[in-house]
């Protein structure tokens, strides 16, 4: 623990020397992470240079970078990346907008706020599987409630998942519904941290609402918004169950995200090595994106101060 620095002598004292305190405190976390995450990651990183198939008895051969070459020259992979970018991009944008509006709504104190807020927070607590299953049912043209309601406005049965655009919309709606509350929480945190006197000053200046938002509110929520974007992008990149349940990647391959594609390659086709290579490319992309965000966050932070 943090200290026992008063114990004396020998290895214990060496270990508990204040110089090593930081390292000591970090160790349990790093050990668990290393054993449970980093080690398997390195294992599959190693595999990505062989031609290993988990279903085959053949001894794997070293293949250098050929798996990476194969993955990067595969048109399918690029298609899947585009699909993923579209779904991640639109879902995160929708989450930001909805989350932001919800946060504005809940920024005020009002009676029973605790309870009303719970209504909005609940979707996050559902499993992906159940969200997928029930949204698929909602979209079903015969039994679904969405189709039922929209049939009042359309001549024919409303068929949500029949076209690529509709299928993407169906997935984005389900995912964004589930995770907008997460964005809301972060934005809410930013909104309520704006010092009141700033608003009061603005009121005296008769600043327009729009201006007030940009000059006072936005700087306070900007870093939180970026944090929300970062977390949601990382998570949505891995989006699997909702897609797999609602559309199975269809129609055709128009909603097959990189996560679904990876799953098929790793588990159904047993291209163990090739899918490891692809996964590392995905990881690389996510790391680059993350660094861009962090860079943006830091630069803004410097600008502000």
């Amino acid at each position, binding site marked *: 623990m*943090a*200290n026992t*620095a008063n114990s004396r002598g020998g290895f214990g004292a060496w270990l508990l020397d204040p110089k090593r*305190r*930081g*390292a000591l405190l*970090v160790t*349990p*976390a*790093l050990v*668990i*992470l290393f*054993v*449970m*995450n*980093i080690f*398997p*990651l390195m*294992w*599959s990183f190693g595999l990505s240079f062989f031609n290993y198939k*988990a279903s085959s008895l053949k001894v794997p051969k070293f293949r250098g970078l050929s798996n990476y070459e194969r993955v990067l020259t595969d048109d399918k992979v690029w298609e899947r990346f585009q699909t993923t970018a579209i779904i991640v991009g639109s879902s995160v944008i929708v989450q930001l907008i909805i989350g932001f509006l919800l946060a504005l709504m809940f920024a*005020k*104190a*009002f*009676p029973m*706020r605790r309870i*009303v807020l719970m209504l*909005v*927070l*609940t*979707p*996050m*607590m*559902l*499993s*992906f*599987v*159940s*969200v997928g299953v*029930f*949204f698929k049912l*909602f979209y079903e043209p015969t039994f*679904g*409630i969405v189709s*039922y309601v929209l049939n009042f406005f359309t001549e024919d049965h409303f068929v949500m998942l029949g076209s690529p655009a509709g299928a993407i919309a169906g997935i984005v709606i389900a995912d964004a519904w589930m995770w907008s509350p997460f964005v809301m*929480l972060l934005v*809410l945190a930013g909104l*309520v*941290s704006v010092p*009141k006197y700033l*608003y009061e000053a603005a009121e005296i200046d008769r600043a327009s609402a729009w201006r007030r938002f940009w000059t006072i509110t936005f700087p*306070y929520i900007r870093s939180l918004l970026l*944090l929300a974007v970062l977390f949601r992008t*990382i998570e949505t990149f891995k989006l699997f169950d909702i897609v797999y349940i609602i559309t199975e990647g269809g129609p055709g391959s128009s909603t097959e995200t990189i*996560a679904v594609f990876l799953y098929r390659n*790793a588990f159904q086709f047993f291209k163990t090595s090739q899918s490891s290579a692809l*996964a590392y490319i995905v*990881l690389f992309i996510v790391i680059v994106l*993350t660094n861009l965000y962090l860079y943006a966050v830091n630069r803004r932070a410097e600008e*502000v101060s």
Partner: protein
Amino acid sequence: MARKYREIGKAGWGYTAITSVVGFIYFFPVFWIILTAFKTRTDALAVPPKLFFTPTLENFQSVFFRASITTGTSQATDMGLYFFNSIFIAFTSVGLALIVGTLAAYAFSRYPLKGNDTYLFIILTTRMMPPIVVIIPIFLMFRLSGLAGSYWGIILLYTAFNIPFSVWLVKSFFDELNPEIEDAARMDGATERRVFFNFCIPQILAGLSATFVFGLILTWNEFLFALLLTGVETRTVPVAMARTLGGEVGVDYGLLAAIVTLFLIPIFFVTFLLQNQLLRGVTFGTVKK
């Protein structure tokens, strides 16, 4: 000092009415799932969709009992055990991650190592990997170490998954604290242990609660690893839930909804209890001055 959580302005019951309507619209899919839990299959698939129907408790009954095929007698399912497993595994691993993560976060914040940011970034990176890729190595490792099917295996794995989030969030809380107060305490002769437990921790309790709730939400419904790494005795609810997705009929909507509804109760309750902390914690931890 701990900043007090406060809202922008106050509003009355009229505002409550408006937000309730919006809130309920947002909540509607969940409401529909809960309704479905009380429906027979025919009602669940009725056209037009039924808002009013004769409720049945049959779905809840079949969460815990099933009819034997040969004798028709009622047998207990293992769902009770699975509920216990889910609660035990999720709470233990999120708690562990919080403890371990807090210690690490404190170090990252107060005793920066060489290459502090690199460590932090590597920690975050482990959360970005699509889980499907590490499944085979983890599965293999679990088998070799005998962790497969045990509580410890899945708990340690979930702990590892929660550490990145815990470290990042909790570190930001520590960063927010004013180190001068700690130094002053040290001057007064407080031990490091006292500084940590009596000065730092109390100030970020709300943040820790928030981290706990976030971790719980992200762990509660995990499916893939639970499917592959738990045994018959340690299976969790999300895995058991999958039996309602297909077999002799397609999705058993009523049964699935009943399990979802029951499974929502514990986490809903915890979130509700810690809600104030959740809001305050997030506020206080992530806002840069």
